[in-house]
């Protein structure tokens, strides 16, 4: 449900950049971690709606899914996992800290301006 809040935040941030150069957004690249709690399909749907009639209306939205990785709280081993409940493959300790996979970022945007003078 909150994917819509997230979509509106993306649109707002990208629009701010477009307004600075009086341009339109042609591409938005998002980094969404697999452990972030964001459902990619829900965000896609939300963004398709949220970008309508804005400076992003013609933009292609690209998603980079960032896989999760964890560090074992016992032996310090780092390992890949997309599961909140993971066991260290080295020592079988059930508690870890996540070092990657919780991202929710706008990586980059492409802005197109109307004429060469305005850039």
């Amino acid at each position, binding site marked *: 449900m*909150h994917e*819509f809040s997230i979509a509106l*935040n993306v*649109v707002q941030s990208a629009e701010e950049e477009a307004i600075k150069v009086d341009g*339109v957004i042609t*591409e938005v690249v998002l980094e969404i971690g697999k452990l972030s709690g964001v459902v990619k399909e829900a965000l896609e749907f939300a963004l398709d709606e949220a970008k309508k*009639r804005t400076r992003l209306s013609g933009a292609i939205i690209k998603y980079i899914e960032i896989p999760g990785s964890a560090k074992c709280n016992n032996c310090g081993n780092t390992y890949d996992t997309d599961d909140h*409940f993971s066991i260290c493959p080295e020592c079988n300790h059930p508690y870890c800290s996540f070092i990657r996979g919780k991202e*929710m970022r*706008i990586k980059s945007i492409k802005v197109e301006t109307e004429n060469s003078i305005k850039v």
Partner: protein
Amino acid sequence: MCGTCGCAESDEVKIMRPHNKETIEYSNDNLTYDYIHTHDEKHAHDYHHHHSHSKEIILEQDILKKNNLLAERNRGYFDAKNIISINLVSSPGSGKTTLLEKTISGLKDELPVFVIEGDQQTMNDAERIKNTGAPVVQINTGSGCHLDSSMVNLAVKKLEPKENSILFIENVGNLVCPSMFDLGENFRIVVISVTEGDDKPAKYPNMFESSDLCIINKTDLLPYVDFNVKKAKKYAMQTNQNIEFIELSAKTEDGLKDWINWLKSKFKVEK
């Protein structure tokens, strides 16, 4: 269009004191309104010139940056006024409001308590808190499913909590969305009740991961339900090794003292 789930209802957020007609009109949706009414429609294919410049801007920007920046401002305000702020989260029906009523009774002779209530509709919870004597403000989110830092910011301005006090923010009943939104709280406390199943922490890991303390409520009902306290704790600790636990019954007040003491200990330390 609603700012959180996309439905067509009005999502005007309201912030009110109970028994007071005065409200702050607050639109969480400045974004959508601006898009419809004020921005020109600009499309790449409308260009008359054949020259157009495309520039890539690397942002590397947290999507919830705005919320988080305002949350930090809230946090700074609480620090400056020595207010311990607590974000209470749970499913609907876990007993948060009853727990708050009992907490206020237990604390109010020693520490001033202020409350911000969050629900989609009604002033019911704020009315209950008002009857305990604690100053309270109700946020109605409309169709919104979580509180965010801007709502709390406005509510705090209306509530005017005193220095050296405790502020409880009772979030909208929802174990999913509130986990993503920093309100500026000092402590996030997740409340589950024994009637909800001991695998609750496994099903909603994000919330337990982001919480400091887990209160297991309605312990008076343990003889009547299949709730394994040890299992529930184990699941919670798998997402957050440092989470603390307090078991209590808000109704019978069994274990309530431990909770009151936990609160008081946080206050002393912060001072």
